[in-house]
């Protein structure tokens, strides 16, 4: 186990720069999730930590040792790839025991460790099979097993669940989390799925275009997103954004959208001349008498909650409510916004005000 530090790391492919000075501090035993849209450089960063890509600038530090020039085999890390990268010509047991075999460990020790890992992951019955004889979920488990027999300093996962179906994904998510709680090994986990990030992480790193947008605990990111990108990325369904200004009216500050809709803001907000972005999460909008009148465009009942796609004047607003909604599209309903949970961002920079 070890802490990991990424300091001012830069990655260039020729003249193309894809990572622009990233800083991340990962404490010993922490579960860190790198999340961001496709192509933002998550895999590249992970592969630099693993040593599979050269680091063009800055340094990566694992357990107090700068590893820029250390070969992957000497970094004492284990990695699980998106497509699992099992050795097709080796059985499950051989796949899992391979790292130990390379270290020249005695056969019975390898067998014992493989057995133990197989028990943890419910793979005992599959030890003699070849990868092609396994289902996707089983392969995924074998790849995890190979990682845990190592007892490495750091686990690296690159979208390990993205090839599984939705249900299995949830199961494996829980299993990985349990495993981490049990082993307490420092983990860096890459995903583009913000739900995975929210549910698994101790700390989330949100990336975009090779920059870190925000680092923080899942609920911090949810409650206080640093900018519109993070606000829109974290949380599902996504946050509503309305463009407008903060104006003073009758001694109180209100938000007035570019289309003229007036929306409430947190108490104590000062008016400002610069245009702003008004953000409110769908789950913080409720249907309540006395709310702002909105026209329903589409209703999406999911059973546990109902999503209402509505319009206030020209401004689209999406609400998610626990109760069933009796109204129909085209009708008007009163929407009430929880003004304490409104997020305001500067429109120019996108930064939180």
């Amino acid at each position, binding site marked *: 186990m070890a802490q990991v530090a990424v300091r001012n790391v830069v990655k260039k492919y020729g003249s193309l720069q894809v990572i622009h000075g990233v800083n991340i501090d990962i404490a010993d035993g922490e579960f860190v999730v790198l999340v961001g849209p496709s192509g933002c450089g998550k895999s590249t960063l992970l592969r630099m930590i693993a040593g599979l890509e050269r680091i063009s600038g800055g340094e990566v530090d694992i357990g107090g040792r700068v590893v820029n020039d250390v070969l992957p*085999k*000497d970094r004492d890390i284990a990695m699980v*790839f998106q497509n699992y990268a099992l050795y097709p*010509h080796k059985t499950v047991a051989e796949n899992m025991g*391979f790292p130990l075999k*390379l*270290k020249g460990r005695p056969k019975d020790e390898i067998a014992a460790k493989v057995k133990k890992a197989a028990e943890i992951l419910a793979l005992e019955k599959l030890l003699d099979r070849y990868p092609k004889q396994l289902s996707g979920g089983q392969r995924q488990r074998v790849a995890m097993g190979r990682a845990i027999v190592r007892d490495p300093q750091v686990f690296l996962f690159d979208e390990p669940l993205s090839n599984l179906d939705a249900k299995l994904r949830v199961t494996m998510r829980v299993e990985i989390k349990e495993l981490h709680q049990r082993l307490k090994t420092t983990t860096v986990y890459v995903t583009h799925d913000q739900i995975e990030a929210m549910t698994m992480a101790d700390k989330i790193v949100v990336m975009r275009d090779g920059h870190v947008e925000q680092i923080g605990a899942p609920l911090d990111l949810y409650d206080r997103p640093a900018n519109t990108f993070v606000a829109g990325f974290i949380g599902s369904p996504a946050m509503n954004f309305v463009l407008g200004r903060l104006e003073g009216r009758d001694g109180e500050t209100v938000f007035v959208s570019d289309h003229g809709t007036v929306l409430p803001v947190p108490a104590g907000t000062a008016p400002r001349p610069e245009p702003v972005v008004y953000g409110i999460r769908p789950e913080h909008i409720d249907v309540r008498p006395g709310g702002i009148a909105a026209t329903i465009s589409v209703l999406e009942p999911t059973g546990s909650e109902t999503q209402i796609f509505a319009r206030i004047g020209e401004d689209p607003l999406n609400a998610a409510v626990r109760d069933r909604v009796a109204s129909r599209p085209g009708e008007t309903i009163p929407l009430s916004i929880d003004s304490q949970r409104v997020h305001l961002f500067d429109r120019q920079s996108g930064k939180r005000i």
Partner: protein
Amino acid sequence: MRSNTVGWLMLAPTIAILAVFGIAPFIYVLYVAFHHWNPFGADPLMTYNGANNFRRLVFDREFLLSIAVTIKFAFFAVVSEIILGYLLAQLFMREFPGRGLFRTVHTLPLIVAPIVVGSVWRLMTTPSIGIIPYLLKTWFGYDLNIGRDAGAAFLLTVIMDIWHWTPLVTLTLLAALLSLPKEPFEQAQIDGANRWQIFWHITLPMIRPAILATVFIRLMDALRTVDEVWMLTSGGPGAATRYVGLHIWKIVFPKTDYGYGAAISVIVLYLTLVMCWLLYVALVAPRQKKEAE
């Protein structure tokens, strides 16, 4: 439902060609092998003599010797070609200036007819004319005379075969290497494997089918080499490079002993099959059994 007749009709031309040019001659050779037939000998008529031709083989020292040198030749040639071919394939996997040109040039020997290869090498090695003896003489003071030196002649036939056929091995192994997924290799690096361990535990097992297929192809080819060696050494000096193909040729054409020649051909075919089968049993079958379990 698709008609079976149509399928057979489509196959008919191929089957006909195979029958006329493949199966019929083979049956004819088999037929001749059980006869005494030497149209220019004392008894020119074709007469049935049972397995006598085959009996004669067992006591034919020249034949046994030719089998021995053929196997030696095939072994050295094929082993060197596989190793060299693999190394070249690995080289072509890397980026270096002039790679495309080098790769093209390196495959040129493949398109040269064996008889031409033989003549060119003959020209290059003829004492006092060829460039190779000249260079060896001026650089190392070594006198190369493949007309006299049995060892040198043998070695030269092996080198010629390597020169001619290594590109084939390179191309097949390169294709195999290029088709490998890259994740297992990255995984192996992370698992702690060094270069040699990656080669031994990952690369080799993964390109093993390609290697085996290439070994079979090259082995069968090497066992029936005739034309190149005929041009280069004519089987000499003595019988040092008289590989079994040449041996058959000598018996069938100059000596016109067709029956005996046919018998040798049949036996050589049989030996080739047995050797490939042994290789298969030793290398391929146990693994497939293991995987099927």
